[in-house]
């Protein structure tokens, strides 16, 4: 019990004293996940809206595939990207392995189906009259699409937040693609794994608290937005 209490105490001290190692890891983690979520959002939200609003052949199949991809294990994504960017892979000459870019790619693949599938659901719940109403008021296709986005905005924000929550704490792809290089590709989950294996319980715990704090902040923000609706 004392061991646990000491761990908590040391973790608290590391956070309050703004330990450089902890700060650097947190910053890298946020930077990589933010870049990945931004790229995913740009691709997944418009695609999800197109799939959700329009009816076309093969739509059901695409939605089923997206739902399946939501459960994709992170190590499988790591393995897949690794096979592409390792020296023997087709993208090997680009030298992406063990760089933040490789981690962003992995996290992008992880978040995209989640955001896309949840955006499809969000678009499907929007009353079809939204689009027709905007059209009869003079909106073009893009503007009527925006009207749908506005109606589904909270569900879409929730989709993006869910995607971010999934990638900020993932370890499999980050470890395989980033290599856990200190100050370069070491993010919070890989750092926790390393510190814990070294017996540095307090550092692991401090990073765990930060991870929880990030998740909590995002969820408070989401709740704030929803309450304003």
């Amino acid at each position: 019990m004392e061991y646990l209490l000491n761990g908590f105490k040391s973790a608290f001290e590391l956070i309050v004293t703004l330990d450089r190692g902890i700060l650097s890891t947190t910053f890298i983690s946020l930077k990589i996940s933010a870049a990945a979520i931004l790229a995913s959002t740009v691709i997944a939200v418009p695609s999800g809206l197109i799939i959700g609003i329009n009816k076309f052949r093969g739509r059901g199949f695409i939605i089923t595939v997206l739902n399946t991809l939501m459960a994709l294990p992170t190590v499988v994504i790591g393995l897949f990207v690794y096979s592409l960017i390792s020296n023997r892979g087709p993208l090997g000459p680009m030298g992406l392995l063990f760089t933040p870019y490789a981690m962003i790619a992995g996290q992008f693949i992880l978040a995209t189906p989640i955001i896309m599938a949840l955006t499809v659901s969000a678009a499907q719940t929007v009353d079809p009259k939204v689009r027709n109403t905007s059209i009869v008021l003079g909106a073009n296709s893009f503007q009527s699409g925006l009207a749908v986005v506005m109606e589904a905005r909270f569900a879409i924000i929730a989709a993006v937040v869910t995607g971010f929550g999934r990638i900020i704490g993932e370890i499999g792809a980050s470890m395989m693609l980033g290599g856990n290089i200190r100050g370069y590709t070491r993010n919070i989950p890989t750092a926790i794994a390393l510190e814990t294996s070294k017996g540095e319980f307090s550092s692991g715990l401090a990073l765990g608290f930060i991870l929880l704090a990030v998740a909590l902040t995002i969820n408070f923000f989401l709740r704030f937005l929803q309450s304003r609706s």
Partner: protein
Amino acid sequence: MLSISSLTFNSSEIYCLYGSNGSGKSTLFEILTLLKKPTRGEIFFKGLEVFPDCKGVSFLRMHVTLVHQNPLLFDTTVEKNVEYGLKIRKVPRKERKLRVNECLKTVGLEGFQRRNARELSGGEAQRVAIARALAIDPEVIFLDEFSANIDYKNRLIIENIIKSINKEFGKTIVFTTHYRDQAYRLSDNVIHLFNGVPVTSLTKNIFRGMIKKTAQGNVFENSKISLVVTAAEPGEATIAVPLNVITVSRGLLESSIRNCLKGRILHITDNGKSVDLKVLSGEFFEAVITKESFQNMKLEPGAEVYLNIKASSIEVF
């Protein structure tokens, strides 16, 4: 399925598409606003082809709007709903605000700007939707079943709004309804839609005027005719005299019938077993008699006849 050989709406008039549920009224509106495309045929707006050639579509979108049955208001404030079409047209903010205030005043919802549109009653929501349509200053407004799901009070308010929009701003208004009284009360041009086909009015001899209380009882009057009617309150009214309640005679009849109008036959149409007569008696009346009566009375164009109409047979709207 709609099957319309030709249908024209003149500007600055109020039209009503009257028909039962499923007669194709809403579908016709969706086709006229190109939310749905017809399988064949042509649609023109102010001389510009909008279907099948899409040359005039953007012009149509800018000048024609539709207020759906149970209209959808965007999940935001009343003000943002009403200014939506103006934003699309890139109208400056200051001008938008003025226009929103003006339109909300027209529909009697001043001070509703900051209200959440999704928290309004059915009647208020309908009025906001009309204000939103009016804000873009369209030439034509299609109103789909605006009376559905709103109370009587709001129904009358909206009817007055429609009249004033037409009168003050000269907008062409086309609305659908399945209330016959509303159709004739609001519109001079009622188009009956039956199973997707526009049909000639089932009730002819429609007249507008005032009902006054007199010693004889309630009397419907306009500048051309005067008819005793029953069971009606004094005030503005529209009456309908169904074809089959008019008894045509060459001379005055001794009977309990209270309305005997003298007139002159203008037109005779032989329909085989029956004959249709068009008679001028102040207003133009249409009547139908059997071939036998026609032959017995030896009727001919220009002949003087009496139209005998029971007061209780006249429908008052």
